[in-house]
Structure formats: C-alpha cells, structure tokens
C-alpha cells in the first residue's frame, strides 16, 4: 500500500520506511520558529522549568518579532527585548519588523520535504513549498527547541482535486474560503489537506501558500501541495538546493477526495463570526464597511498587492472608510515599491503600514471599535478578532477588499478588473 506525501515526510522525519494514520511517532524536526505572540512564555519554560542551557541546533531555531511590531506599549517592548537577548545569547537567527513570520520562513528557510514546527497555528503555510509545517503551543515548541524532536500522531489525508482556471476577479483566496465553507471549521480536524489536480500544478508558490495557510481554519494539521519545478525553482532562486521531493503514491490511501472546478468559482466572503460561514459575493446584500485591510500571512504577498493596485489605480477610496495595507515582508514591500504599487495605494488614500501581522492580529495596528465593520484579507473573523468584542469581520480577497474600500460597502471586484 502506498503513502501520501505527508506520510512520507513523517516517515523520513521519524527514520521509518512506512508510517500509517493513527500511529504515534517521534520525529526529528528540521526547523522550528517562534514569534512574539508566545516567545516570552517559551523562554520562561526553557530557562526556569526545563532548566535548559542550549537550543538543539542554533541554525534551526528562528525567532521572529511580527505580531506587535513596532511595540505599542512598554510591556510589549519588554517582551521583544527578552526575545532579542535570548536570540543573541544562543546565536540564533532573529528578525524584527521585517515581515510576517511565515512569509520570512518561506522566503529564507523552508525547502520541500522538511518537517517544520512553529509556535503559530498558520505554520501549515509551508505546504506551499511541499514541506510539512504544523503549529504547536509554547510547551511543545520549547521542548522542540531543546530536544529537536516531537511526538506526532500520523494523520489521515484528505485530497482536494482542483481543475479549471480562475475567472478574472477570482483568486486562490476565494477557493480556500469556498473549501472551508463547504467542509466546515473542523471538516479537516487532525487531518492533512492535500491540494492537487491540474489547476494547482499551474499555481505559483504564492497561491499554493494561500491554500495551505488556511488549512488550520478547517482544523487541519497541515496543508500540502506536491513539490514540482515551480517549488524547486522558488527555493533554488533563494540559494537553497538541498531538498526532498516527496510526492503521493498512485495507490496512496485518502480518507476522502473532493473535486473543485475553478471555472465555476465566484468571489467568496466569510461572514461574522466563523471562517466557515461563507457566501458568494453576489449573495451578500448591502454591507457597509468602516475599514478594509490587505495583508497577513494569508494574503499580503505581491500577487495580492498587484490585484488590489489594479483596482485602486487612479481612484480614491470612500472618504469615510479607512484602507490599511501591510505587505507581508520586506521583500514584498520592496517589490511593490519597484512596481509602483505603493504610489497607487498612497494616492488612493490607503495607509501603507510596515510588514507585520497588523490588523489580522487585532491588538496592535488598526484595531476597530464597537459596532464597526472590517473587511479583511486576514486569516480569521472570530468575534472581537480585530478589536472590540462587538465588532464584525468579513474575510475576502485583496481585490474584493480594494473594491469595497472604493464604494464603502462590500463589493464584487469583477466589475473593476479587466
């Protein structure tokens, strides 16, 4: 019996020829990463509870300050200082204010075939490069940082076969919202979501990451796309050549297979307060907005910024709406500057922010007030996620957010794109 690519990555990481769903393995971790959302607790556990002195491998432990940066309070500044001092002491890679952690990991570290553990739920993003990334809490993370190992249960795999091609104004973001709406917020609980089919084979790494990043919103342990020349070229262009190209066997066993055709897909919106409450933009009715946000580990890359710029070019946003745009990393920011996208955003009336988690994290920049409505390319629309407990978050593509910022209400972007 064959294995899925996820099973193969876990087999390699645990030194086995074969693993099966339900089996508990001890796996060696290729990389681990933690951000300022929890690292202060990790350091406390590492130093005071484990009484550890060294990280397992300083080249494989990465600290990234991306959640509350620049710091909005003295207490946050103290947390960042604690991370900085630890990183210096242990001589581990440290990033502060240069991007959302997952985008930095994809740009600078991840290669196909790796097992990556990080103290953040959206670690599943790395499946866009054919790596098995999964999020853990601070105790698990600290244990990994110290030992380089983790126990994992091998999950079942769900397969998503995608065919067709996007119509103008429809994006990978709409596809993943549609899938989560269909299978539900725990539709893939404890499972791998493997995305494939003729359409995904043509996707850029950015679009593959969009799919895998939100696998956790359906409860999945990770999302994966088989690595191919597109993934290899991405890693090699950034100087990374050692990789393992795991693909699923013909006779691999999937718990279930789902089929999607992009020709039939329209722009999708997740309505408050759950990510699986998803409707087509044409069914949304009139929803006035107070703020738009484009950014996050899901949707703040160059392709999304281009889609937004195409809509905003030469136009002004509604005078009573704020539009906040945060490129996902320094590299994305520089690319957007070189392409003139930032000029378009600023001219349209948008506020361009430093690369960070920003509004998606809901405690640093662009927090919304009581009764306010946000339309966002972020990862979650939970109650109070973007600020006041009595506020509303709608999730949509960058194009839909841009179109909505122009009109002041949730708007179908297809009327704005050519």
């Amino acid at each position: 019996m064959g294995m899925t690519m996820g099973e193969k990555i876990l087999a390699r990481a645990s030194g086995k020829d074969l693993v099966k769903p339900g089996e508990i393995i001890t796996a060696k971790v290729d990389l681990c990463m933690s951000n300022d959302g929890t690292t202060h607790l990790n350091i406390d556990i590492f130093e005071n509870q484990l009484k550890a002195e060294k990280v397992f491998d300083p080249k494989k432990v990465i600290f990234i300050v991306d959640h509350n940066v620049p710091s909005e309070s003295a207490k946050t500044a103290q947390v960042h200082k604690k991370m900085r001092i630890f990183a210096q002491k242990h001589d581990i890679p440290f990033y502060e204010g240069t991007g959302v952690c997952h985008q930095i990991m994809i740009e600078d570290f991840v290669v196909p075939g790796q097992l990556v553990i990080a103290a953040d739920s959206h670690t599943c993003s790395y499946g866009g490069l054919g790596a098995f990334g999964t999020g853990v809490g601070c105790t698990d993370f600290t244990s990994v940082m110290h030992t380089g190992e983790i126990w994992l249960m091998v999950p079942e795999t769900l397969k998503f076969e995608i065919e067709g091609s996007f119509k103008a104004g429809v994006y990978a973001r709409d596809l993943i919202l549609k899938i989560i709406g269909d299978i539900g917020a725990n539709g893939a609980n404890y499972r791998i979501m493997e995305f494939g089919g003729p359409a995904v084979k043509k996707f850029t790494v950015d679009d593959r990451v969009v799919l895998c990043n939100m696998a956790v919103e359906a409860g999945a342990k990770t999302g994966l796309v088989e690595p191919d020349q597109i993934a290899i070229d991405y890693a090699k262009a950034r100087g990374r050549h050692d990789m393992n190209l795991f693909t699923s066997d013909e006779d691999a066993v999937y718990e279930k297979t789902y089929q999607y055709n992009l020709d039939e897909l329209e722009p999708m919106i997740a309505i408050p307060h759950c990510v699986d409450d998803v409707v087509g933009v044409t069914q949304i009715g009139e929803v006035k907005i107070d703020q738009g946000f484009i950014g996050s580990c899901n949707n703040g890359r160059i392709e999304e910024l281009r889609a937004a710029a195409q809509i905003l070019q030469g136009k002004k946003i509604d005078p009573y709406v704020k539009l906040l745009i945060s490129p996902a990393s320094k590299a994305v920011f520089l690319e957007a500057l070189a392409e003139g996208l930032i000029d378009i955003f600023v001219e349209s009336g948008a506020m361009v922010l430093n690369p960070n988690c920003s509004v998606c994290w809901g405690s640093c920049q662009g927090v919304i007030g009581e009764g306010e409505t946000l339309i966002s390319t972020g990862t979650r629309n939970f109650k109070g996620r973007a600020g006041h407990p009595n506020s509303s978050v709608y999730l949509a593509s960058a194009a839909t957010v841009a179109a909505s910022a122009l009109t002041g209400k949730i708007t179908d972007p297809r009327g704005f794109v050519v």
Partner: protein
Amino acid sequence: MIKGKVWKFGNDVDTDQIIPSQYLLLPNVEEMKQYTFEPLDENFASTVCPGDIIVGGENFGSGSSREQAPLVLKALGISAVVAKSFARIFFRNAINIGLPVVICKEVYDAVEQKDTLEIDVLKGTIKNVTKDRNFTSTKLPAHVMNILEAGGLIGFLNKK
C-alpha cells in the same frame, strides 16, 4: 477522580474567545487570567470556582496556537474540559500543561449549567451527579496519558 460544577459553552469556541489577542503579551498568565472568556461572559473570571469544569460542543479551542488559552483556564482552577471534539492544537496544549481534556459526544446534550460532573480520565467515565446519568468518554493513547499523569510535558521530560 475529578468533580466539579459545569460551565457550558457552544460549538466552535475559539481561542480568541477564551483569551483575546490583546491580552496575550501581558507578562504572565496571572495577569491574563482575569480576561478569560471576556467576549462571551465578562463575569466568568470573577465567578468561576477552583474545580469547575468546562463543557463545550464540537471543535472546542479552534483557531490560534496560543497556549495561553488552556493556561488561563488552568490558572483559574478549571479541573477539566469536556467537549464533543477539540481543535488539535488546543488539545495538545492542554495535555502539555496537564489540563485534562475529555472527548465525549453524548454528555453535552445531557448537561446543564451548574450541574455537577464526576470524571475519571483513566477509566474513561463521566457521571452527571445532578441528573444521575453515566457516560463513557474516549480513552487517551498511552503516550498521551503518560504526559498528562506527569502533570504535563515538562514534568514528563524532567522525569525522563
């Protein structure tokens, strides 16, 4: 044996409801715990008693990987969380900090706010003492039970 009074919540209780983002960077859990469940019940933290039990529906603890979610529950003295199903990261985190998490499909519809439950995690049994009804829960794999019995992953690693 765990025994306590029930606080009942619905499906898809996410980690932003358990402890909102804006409190996560407070220096420690003692400062965070007063905000537990603030979006759902702002009086929760001031009225919960040590030993109380949380009962949830499907997908309890969905969303972020913040270990602060089970940590604030434990800091307030919650003795166990029983749910129809758990989101996987919350489930791992709870085990790792020594907070018992119990999967049981049936008990949810047969329990009301303030009922008293008795839970035996090892045996996989739950009794609604108030209503005198018995249920079975999913037993944890041996490896996971060992971590829980050591009081969490740190205790487990330090014992090794």
